[in-house]
């Protein structure tokens, strides 16, 4: 009896040790590279920590937050980021959803090849994508001004997109959609392909047109995938650093300074680590908030 218990106990201890051995690396890696820096960042955000102070960082009575709030900077960063994110998410959603619907049609020939080609812009490195769009947006020699300006007369000749107060935002949105929309598209296509075809055929037999099939069958069944895809691309574009950093550097006069550019510049250009950390904390809090809301919505629609 006792020996059976002891052997059961040793088996449990052995299992526990084995689980610890298997999970320790991921815990250590993410602990060091994510969770410790976040906690340290929250601490740093309350400190006067700049290259100018020339002494050890010290508690500064929420001054980093007060400065960001009173100067109105944080509001501008948030507004810029939200404009960028909403534009990217909406455009990517419309384009990739319509394209997925069109390509899901069995009548389209060569759709696997087309799908592969469409994904190439998502595979190439973001830096390369940003650089390529910088070239295409060049005022004198860029192909975009040539087509939109000289051929179609939609924009002024030699329009300087990346230095324009409003067009600079449009430019970084276009480059980001070009790179990110394909991800959404694969998710939508996979979702559409999982919809039972007999359901659609039965509805068509009953005389439902394509729009009604879309509204009453496709959309409701796709809702979970749409929610996940939207969340994924929202988080991605909320985090986007490379595209604005390379294409506009946050300019002109801060018109494209998103939270990621602002945090980076505060910490690594102005060497004000405390302010950079404070921007990071507010950014993190808003992302956690968005994720919680979306998760709530998903769990509610599933019920």
């Amino acid at each position: 009896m006792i020996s059976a218990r002891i052997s059961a106990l040793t088996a449990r201890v052995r299992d526990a040790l084995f689980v610890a051995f298997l999970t320790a690396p991921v815990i250590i890696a993410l602990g060091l590279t994510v969770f410790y820096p976040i906690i340290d960042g929250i601490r740093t955000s309350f400190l006067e920590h700049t290259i100018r102070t020339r002494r050890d960082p010290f508690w500064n009575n929420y001054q980093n937050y007060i400065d960001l709030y009173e100067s109105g900077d944080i509001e501008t960063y948030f507004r810029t980021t939200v404009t960028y994110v909403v534009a990217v998410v909406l455009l990517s959603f419309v384009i990739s959803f319509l394209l997925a619907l069109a390509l899901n049609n069995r009548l389209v020939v060569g759709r696997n090849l087309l799908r592969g080609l469409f994904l190439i812009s998502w595979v190439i490195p973001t830096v390369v994508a940003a650089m390529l769009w910088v070239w295409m947006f060049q005022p004198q020699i860029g192909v975009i001004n040539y087509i939109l300006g000289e051929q179609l007369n939609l924009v002024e000749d030699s329009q300087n997109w990346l230095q324009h107060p409003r067009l600079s935002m449009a430019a970084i949105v276009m480059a980001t959609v070009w790179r990110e929309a394909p991800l959404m598209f694969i998710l939508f296509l996979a979702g559409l392909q999982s919809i039972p075809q007999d359901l659609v055929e039965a509805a068509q037999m009953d005389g439902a047109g394509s729009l009604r099939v879309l509204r009453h069958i496709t959309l409701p069944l796709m809702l979970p995938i749409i929610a996940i895809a939207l969340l994924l691309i929202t988080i991605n574009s909320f985090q986007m650093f490379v595209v604005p950093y390379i294409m506009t550097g946050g300019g002109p006069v801060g018109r494209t300074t998103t939270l990621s550019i602002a945090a980076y510049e505060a910490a690594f250009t102005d060497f004000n680590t405390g302010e950079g950390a404070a921007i990071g904390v507010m950014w993190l809090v808003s992302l956690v908030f968005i994720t919680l809301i979306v998760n709530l919505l998903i769990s509610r629609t599933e019920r």
Partner: protein
Amino acid sequence: MRPRVPLSQSQRQQRQRVLAYLFIAVVMVVFIAPSVWMVLGSIQPNREITKDTPNFIPRNVTLANYERIATEPQFRTYFQNSLITTSATVLLSLVISIHAGYAFSRYRFVGKRLLMTGILSVQMFPKVAILITLFAFFARLELINTYEGLVLSHLSLTLPFSVWFMKAFIDSIPFELEEAALIDGAGRLRSIWQVVVPLCLPGIVSVAVYTFMLSWNDFVFALTLMSQDDMRTLPVGVNLSYIGQFQNDWSGMMALSTVASLPVVIMFILLQRFMIAGLTAGALKA
């Protein structure tokens, strides 16, 4: 105008088909043209592609830009650094996520849900914000300008996806297949590597391709954690040469950009099937 008559079934299908093709054509051109433009720019001399009227059909095809990149030792260093970092990240991510995925799939233990949610939540944390304190932390550990430091930071990009994905994949492998090996006296660890891993190969390929792309693509960690020129990776090299030797040299820039894209594009074309299946399954389960 013609009076609206109800369209017959076949007319409606016809119209739908035309609309679908038209839309596909427009979107495809807009999305594929820039990549083609990049390659076309890279195989022409710079004076040809910096004229006021662009050449849509190249007149002067040359590989001189690629030759220049191949002969400058600095680009070879960037390429090598990218390759070292990325391969180490892929290998480590695979081993770590196979082990952790196995534990999450086969065992019940205290704090499992919390741990798994914690791992998934990493994806939503802003990387630039993390980097501010990570930089100071790595400086104290003397990990700046080391492969170890950059690889460790890349694990934060790859592990959330790969651990969750491996867990879901191992879930789909019946435990009975392992039992035979366990009865024969193999330990749990041997059973993972001799029974589970061979059965998981398609999943492992998906994880490998995706982690390769994530690590190869990284710019912001490499930009801040690798400040020495001989430690820089290719994406940072692309950005630097824009202000450096390729200033106003767009054909050189495009050749370098093409070189930086080739490994991932080739890998994607070869392993597209695994990649797409893995990605969608991963997203759906998460």
